């Protein structure tokens, strides 16, 4: 019995092997369609990742906060990733990023950026993750 055979691919021309501008790719296999994430108002969005940690600057939402903003502020009394906020609020990621952008502008939350893979990864970071996993 022989397994089916794959052929490896190489990094696409001009695609850096590191986080760069969000990749936009059209449907493959001759499928004439384009997919994209629904943008927020004016397409104005802060650079927010699924694992950016959000923390409310104060435990009490101001009276001016919308119900959605207040719900988010209450969730983020302790640091919480955008993915978790999206899950608890049952809102799509892009909608949550719009909410967070508003709250960042109003200085009601703080965003702690993730550590992203770089061309030359940080060895001490990788070692810290390994130690953490070993404890599991």
């Amino acid at each position, binding site marked *: 019995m022989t397994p089916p055979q794959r052929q490896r691919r190489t990094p696409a021309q001009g695609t850096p092997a590191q986080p760069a501008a969000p990749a936009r790719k059209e449907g493959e296999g001759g499928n*004439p369609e384009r997919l994209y994430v629904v943008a927020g108002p004016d397409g104005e969005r802060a650079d927010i990742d699924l694992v950016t940690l959000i923390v409310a600057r104060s435990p009490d939402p101001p009276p001016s906060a919308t119900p959605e903003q207040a*719900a988010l502020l209450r969730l983020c009394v302790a640091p919480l990733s955008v993915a978790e906020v999206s899950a*608890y609020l049952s809102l799509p*990621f892009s909608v949550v990023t719009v909410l967070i952008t508003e709250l960042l502008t109003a200085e009601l939350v703080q965003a702690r950026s993730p550590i992203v893979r770089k061309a030359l990864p940080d060895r001490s970071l990788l070692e810290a*993750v390994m130690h953490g996993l070993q404890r599991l």
Partner: protein
Amino acid sequence: MDFNGSDTIPGPRAEDQLPHTAQSAVKIVIVGGFGVGKTTMVGSVSEIKPLTTEETMTQAGIGVDDNYGSASKTATTVAMDFGRIRITDELVLYLFGTPGQERFWFLWNGLFEGALGAVVLVDTRRLEVSFDVMGRLEERGVPFVVAVNSFPDAPRYPLADLRTALDLSEMIPIVECDVRRRASSRDVLMTLMRFLHSLAMTGSLA
């Protein structure tokens, strides 16, 4: 969802809250075909009950210019299971499991960008379903390891044959696992981390 009732939004349990010292997060993505064990793997290593986040994408025909902007658009919701592991008081690891059609995963801006690496879960009964995703990871330069989830009735190929079939270079690890077991899933993640560490040492992705 009704956001007006102030206490109706469930949040993390008190014991699941991250400390205020949590400064940053890193992520790993688990990819593979339907039923290969992605959700099981996320659940077996996560310290929180796995959650689901979703993204809405629209799909528009671009075959002809004349209907640009007026083409009927279909909204597609892509859901993603994820779990979390506290690494230190400052650092948190998130694991994302990608269900559904793979062409959507790569359109989710920011899912693979910045991920430390990926685990490609394969089922030897349907090896070919993982071919496309491996190619896409290669094209984007996302480092990955291959984990063979050993289902009882699945064909067992020697790892060398699998390496040949998957056209993987000698340096890319292939391991067997039973993702229902936490220790086994943890070992897969450790394999990925050691691989990333070796890449960091040699300074290459080749």
